[in-house]
């Protein structure tokens, strides 16, 4: 046996594919510190010059190694470092050092990635909503809907999200929103509702949410927004939030017109108000009613103070609720209403611990399955020269598939893992066919034996691929990962790994 024979063109192609997968997955042992996943605009980190490239691979994120001279080895090291009373933070990363003020830092950090495989929601935890518009939208409206949603989540401060379109075989359009760090109720509140804000005097709408009517919303500034009072009420607590907004000239004029004809009422304590209040509605529910001071009658006032309540069983909870309601209302006032109301047809939230359990477990299960295959193969052929190449082929098939999925920036989910396992399973079947054809004494010519084996393999291959294609689209692509991984896996198998396998065992079995 000549070793050179082993490196035929087929084997070289296999090695090439393994290299491509290796580069795509990029296993990395450089994982000290914590990696920077995103930087808020206008935060002190951004001012200090820290940035994250838009399409950065997980292993190429900048890593924080030291803060104020303390080594950062974990997320808890990081959080204790930034909670210190130091006025300034001296941060050393693997690329440089930065000095920033210890307030409004604006960094989102994570454990450093050990490879570039993108983990789907099921493996990393988070919330995913499948949303259907309640009316049929045209292309422009659909795009507006997505833009407003994106804007709303952005304004609210949610990073690391994916918004994508999806449709099913029936032609229904959906939007899939995946958010790594958000809770289910936040997602439900922010995008599950239309967020139609209306300020009415009587039955007349004077202004709405969105930048046409509202030109400025005060946020994160204690002088013009915050919680103003907390009181005991109805067996619990109620807190009142307030924040200032600025109206556009047209909206202010509309308000002036609406108040022009109103009468003035004087309360017992001597304040005089207009007879009708300014009613604030969110998705047609009354949030609050504001009395209008009588001296504003007929005036185009542009500065308006919006208020609303938050409730809870104790003061702390009420405060939290009021803060959350305020943040939500501010977001909606800035971004405006979504073009239509929405229905959340499917919603998953997976805790990060369950995600990582699934990840580890799926990997172990796959390795054990390959071991089981190796055992059966060894029992049948009793030759390492057959079973070792077979195990090698199977593992490289799974690895190349994983690499190609990573290259396509596909977020690996459980369905995709099942698809990879399925592809490896059919791969082994085909290798058995090849081996038996080569071992058989049926035809003298090696090429002919090989051809015969590939006739059977190709039939099975075509069926497998064709049956997976509709699954790519069915059910909003929820099982796309499965179909995609299977198609890639069997294709790699038929055209890359199995020809190489046939070559290797031909040489090893001494032709």
């Amino acid at each position, binding site marked *: 046996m000549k070793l050179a024979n082993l490196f035929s063109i087929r084997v070289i192609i296999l090695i090439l594919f393994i290299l491509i997968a290796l580069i795509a997955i990029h296993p990395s042992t450089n994982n000290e510190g914590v990696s920077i996943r995103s930087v808020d605009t206008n935060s002190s980190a951004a001012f200090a010059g820290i940035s994250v490239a838009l399409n950065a691979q997980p292993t190429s994120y900048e890593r924080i190694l030291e803060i104020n001279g303390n080594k950062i080895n974990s997320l808890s090291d990081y959080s204790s470092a930034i909670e210190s009373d130091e006025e300034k933070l001296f941060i050393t990363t693997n690329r440089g050092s930065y000095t920033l003020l210890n307030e409004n830092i604006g960094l989102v950090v994570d454990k450093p990635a050990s490879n570039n495989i993108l983990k789907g929601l099921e493996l990393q935890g988070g919330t995913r909503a*499948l949303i*259907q518009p309640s009316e049929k939208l045209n292309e422009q409206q659909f795009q507006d809907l997505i833009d407003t949603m994106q804007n709303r989540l952005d304004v609210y401060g949610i990073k690391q999200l994916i918004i994508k379109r999806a449709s099913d*075989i*029936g032609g*229904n359009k959906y939007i899939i929103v995946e958010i790594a760090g958000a*809770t*289910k109720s936040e997602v439900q509140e922010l995008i599950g509702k239309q967020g139609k804000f209306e300020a009415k005097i009587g039955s007349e709408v004077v202004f709405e949410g969105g930048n046409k009517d509202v030109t400025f919303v005060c946020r994160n500034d204690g002088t013009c927004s915050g919680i103003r009072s907390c009181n005991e009420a109805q067996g619990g607590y109620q807190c009142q939030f307030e924040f200032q907004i600025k109206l556009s000239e047209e909206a202010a004029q509309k308000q002036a017109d609406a108040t022009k004809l109103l009468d003035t009422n004087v309360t017992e304590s001597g304040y005089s108000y207009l007879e009708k209040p300014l009613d604030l509605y969110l998705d047609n529910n009354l949030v609050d009613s504001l009395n209008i001071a009588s001296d504003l009658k007929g005036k185009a006032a542009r500065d308006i103070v919006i208020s609303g309540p938050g409730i809870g069983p104790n003061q702390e909870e009420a405060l939290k609720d009021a803060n959350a309601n305020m943040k939500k209302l501010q977001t909606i006032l800035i971004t405006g209403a979504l073009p239509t109301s929405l229905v959340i*047809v499917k*919603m*998953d*939230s*997976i*805790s990060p*611990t*369950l995600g990582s*359990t*699934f990840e580890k*477990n*799926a990997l*172990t*299960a796959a390795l*054990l*399955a*390959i071991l*089981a*295959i190796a055992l*059966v*193969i060894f029992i*049948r052929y009793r030759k390492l020269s057959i079973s070792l190449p077979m195990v090698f082929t199977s593992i490289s098939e799974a690895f190349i598939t994983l690499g190609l999925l990573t290259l396509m920036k596909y977020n690996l989910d*459980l*369905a995709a*893992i*099942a698809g990879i396992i*399925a592809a490896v*399973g*059919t791969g*082994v*079947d085909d290798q*058995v*066919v090849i081996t*038996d054809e080569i071992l*058989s004494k049926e*035809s003298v010519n090696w090429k002919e034996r090989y051809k*015969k084996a590939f*006739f*059977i393999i190709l*039939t*099975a291959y075509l*069926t497998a691929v*064709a*049956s*997976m294609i*509709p*699954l790519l689209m*069915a059910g*909003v692509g*929820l*099982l796309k990962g*499965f*179909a995609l991984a299977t198609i890639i896996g069997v294709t790699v198998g038929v055209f890359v790994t199995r020809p190489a396998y046939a070559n290797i065992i031909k040489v090893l079995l001494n032709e």
Partner: protein
Amino acid sequence: MKLEAFLERVYENNYKKLILVSLGLLVISLIILGINYFSTGAVIERDISLKGGISVTIEKEGLNEQEISSYLAQKFGNVNVRTLTELSTRKDMGLIIEASNVGEDELKAALKEKINFDESQYSSESYSSSFSESFYKQLVMVLLFAFILMAIVVAVTFRTFIPSLAVILAALIDILATLAIISLLHIQISAGGITAFLLVIGYSIDTDVLLTTKLIKRKIGTMYERFAQSVKTGLTMTITSIAAVFVGYLFSAASILKEIFLIIFIALIIDIITTYIGNGSILIWYIKNKKI
């Protein structure tokens, strides 16, 4: 005794009777599925991903499945509670609770009363019933499409009526018998489970195509020698797959993976019967009639 001699002794005088074994399996499966249909209105139980509802996972050790199950049943009626286990460490990791007639907030509140868990231990999935219904219909369409496509590929490959029909029949029996067994085990099928049947089609025809090619298209050796060869190759294929999915079933924690592996495991065992007893006998009958 050599394998071909054994096969010859078993099949030579009995192949017609052996065809009946496979057909009997088809009839029994149809009866079971028929009874399901007439008693419950559906051939198989669907889980919440295909009929709508909510699934909650609480990842906490030491929860009592029985106790929680009877507590929830009392409160909400039909609620399905399972333990999430990791077999490699034999550790119970928590509970999976599925219900289709109760809202998430209600269910969560009821669970909070009984179990002390925090948000990081809580995962959930909810499906609206109209979405799930259309999801289910689409997946059934995909499965039908795949089956028809497989039938076309097989027919084009062999271009002979009886052998093609035998391959397609074997795949059909694999699917129906597996469905029948799944329903007898009272397993609720999920979206992932239906895709497992797509794989069943693939695994099923692998061995049938091999057998048919060897018996009909090849001419070297006696019929039983060729039969023996394809039994050896085909059984190796099937047993490696069975070993892989069995191990996968034992060791995976995620229920979608467990379900896929279990369905393929059952189908592969059925496939040994339909391929070698059913399809094999039909082919022997066909060859003897045609005197090939």
